[in-house]
């Protein structure tokens, strides 16, 4: 599967980040199989597994690692200047519902209510890239929320704004101050989240329309009172 990650450099000239990238690629595919098996198990065993806290932790953590690996690969391609946004028109409510469906088993398992609010609008973005950062954000919200998550889209100032909100503690002040962390000074307490935000910010930035560029915004509060993640797409 990893053949398209190798290039024709001299064999002796070992490119370590490329080696890591193809290893990550491989791990990610394995995790994808693992996640699929978890979904199957849940289908087969029904309620007893769905309620199981340990099973839900297993799925959450696997999903998290999977998301991290996808991000790592994205960052690798970003650094190699090979990540571009393939922007096309998408029907926003359908797109958001699909993102939510990905997390349905875990949401059900943890008894989390999830609301989707979007009018019948269409937006312009790369569905894989934006889907990727929403997957991670929703997974993150599942971890930090108490009981509710809201996924919403609106149009504001000529931007399409997609937001993920929860009723948890909200983001710590440092993150609100600087949503695009410097990756050279990674804080291991928030490591994965910082990585996620860095990637989300980079992906938003790849979306351009005329002079305007996409970005992310973090805040606390709103109707649910917890953290709110927003991606603004021009």
């Amino acid at each position, binding site marked *: 599967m990893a053949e398209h990650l190798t290039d024709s450099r001299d064999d002796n000239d070992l490119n370590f980040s490329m080696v890591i990238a193809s290893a990550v690629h491989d791990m990610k595919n394995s995790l*994808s199989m693992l996640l699929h098996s978890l979904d199957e198990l849940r289908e087969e065993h029904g309620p007893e597994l769905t309620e199981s806290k340990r099973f839900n932790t297993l799925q959450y953590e696997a999903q998290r690692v999977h998301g991290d690996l*996808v991000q790592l690969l994205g960052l690798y391609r970003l650094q190699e200047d090979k990540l571009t946004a393939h922007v096309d028109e998408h029907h926003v409510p359908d797109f958001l519902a*699909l993102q939510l469906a990905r997390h349905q088993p875990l949401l059900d398992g943890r008894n989390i209510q999830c609301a989707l609010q979007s009018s019948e609008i269409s937006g312009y973005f790369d569905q894989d890239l934006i889907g990727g950062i929403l997957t991670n954000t929703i997974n993150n919200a599942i971890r930090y929320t108490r009981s509710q998550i809201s996924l919403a889209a609106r149009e504001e100032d000529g931007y399409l704004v997609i937001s993920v909100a929860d009723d948890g503690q909200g983001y710590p002040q440092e993150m609100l101050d600087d949503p695009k962390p410097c990756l050279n000074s990674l804080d291991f307490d928030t490591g994965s989240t910082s990585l996620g935000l860095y990637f989300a910010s980079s992906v938003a930035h790849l979306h351009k329309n005329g002079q305007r560029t996409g970005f992310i915004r973090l805040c606390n509060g709103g109707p649910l009172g917890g953290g709110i993640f927003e991606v603004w797409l021009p």
Partner: protein
Amino acid sequence: MSNNENNTGNPFRKLRYLIVDDFENFRLSLRQMLRSFGADHIEVAANGQTAVQRCTYEHFDVILCDYNLGKGKNGQHILEELRHRKLLKRTSLFIMVTAETSKEMVMGAREYQPDAYLTKPINRAMLDKRLGDLVEQRNALLPINREIDLENLPQAITLCRQALQDKPKYKTWLLKTLAELYFQLGDYTHARKIYEDVVSQRKLSWAQLGLARVLLAEQHYDEACSALNALIEEQPDFVEAYDVLAKTLAKQGKAAKAQKMLQKATELSPNALLRHKSLADIATQNQDMETAASAWRTTVTLGTHSVHDSPEHYISLGRSLSDLSDGDQTEVGQNYAGEALRIVSVMEKRFPEAVGVSTKSKLIQARVHAGQGRSREANAALEQAKLDIDPEKLDPDLGLDLAKTYYSVGATQLAEALLGDLAKRFENDPQVLGQIENLLDEPVSFRQKVKARALNRDGIKAFEGENLTDAASAFREALALVPNHAALNLNLIQVILRQIDKQQVGREALQDCKRCLDALSNLPTQHRQYRRYLALKKKIESMNHG
């Protein structure tokens, strides 16, 4: 929870499904999910061959096909074969199931795109949502696709126009399809209008590419080039843009640049057979035999599971390898020769029924042996090939190849007679005539050909700079390689005449001119240089008398 229960009937129920996956687990779990949505008719296939076979005898509305199927055909091969053989209508949905980043491997596949991608892992809720949306879209667009399946394009256009009013949800699909339909009908004005309108709102890459294709079709090559260069600048991994740019450059006569573009495209998207084939063709045209051979080699390899596989690819590979091995008895040359013989033998086994294949194979064998100095084997293969050839009905391709083989075994007179005969039979076909002239001019290995052409260029440059001594020696050196080259002989005559005129050489140099004219005494009257030959001949005769 799903959008499939609110209509009068369950839209999943009446559709016919085919699941293609090499893992039994995946097949079972997908089948179970589909069942739970109410699907009734579900077939499965574990590999590409079975999948294609099923589609030959049965119609499916939805095909869920994994990209990676282990050995044998992959998902893209299946899609191409089904669409190419018209076993899959546009009204059916082909959904490619992929692991996340393997999508790039699929992208840039030249002709056929799946209707949608589904990325693993897939759970029931996702499949329900995604498939529900796709089926809803399929049903909404069904009347349009039905007309396209029936080749009823004007009616499809009318329906698209209507749907733009009352189905705004599918605006992008409708605009893409509408522009494509206009393009197919040759109505470039309407196609261009749609693309321009879209681009003026937002620089979407599909519309920019469409616009460039219209510019190319309307022969606005410079504009097409600059549009495509700008697009590639923004989207360096947009493979189709490289394809169209290569086509445009080729139309402008910039074959070397076109080749470079196709090389970049094949690096970005290494699995599209037809792109490697285009690269091989243009590299052959550029006399870049190493690149041509390597591109033919890839074309042959990619053909293993592809509907586009053809003995002609093997023949072309054999021919380019035979060119590379010609007269090279070092280890490198021997390897090329060995590979050429192997590849034609593989071909004869793989396509035992194909017409004319064994004759072409014999001719390649004859040239390979001749090029390695094994004249006995060469003549034996040539004799065998001739048994199957009827000179009266010889088509140009085989005729030229036979003439080339005659040259390689040293049967120059047979070659010239055959070419003269072909020139008469195809005197109204300028392309064939051009090929005949090239072979008459340069019946030598491509290496000598390339060298002679370079010397010719040097000579012309020196002549233009009034550096007559250098010009004459460049043309003489080139003629030592290709003594019967029409343009070169005439070029040398002109240089000498000028030298005499400027009194740089004496009139005894006219003897050289005479020798040049003698070399062209068999020049066919259809030859591009024939009138120039006559004019110079007359001039020299008058000078001799004067």
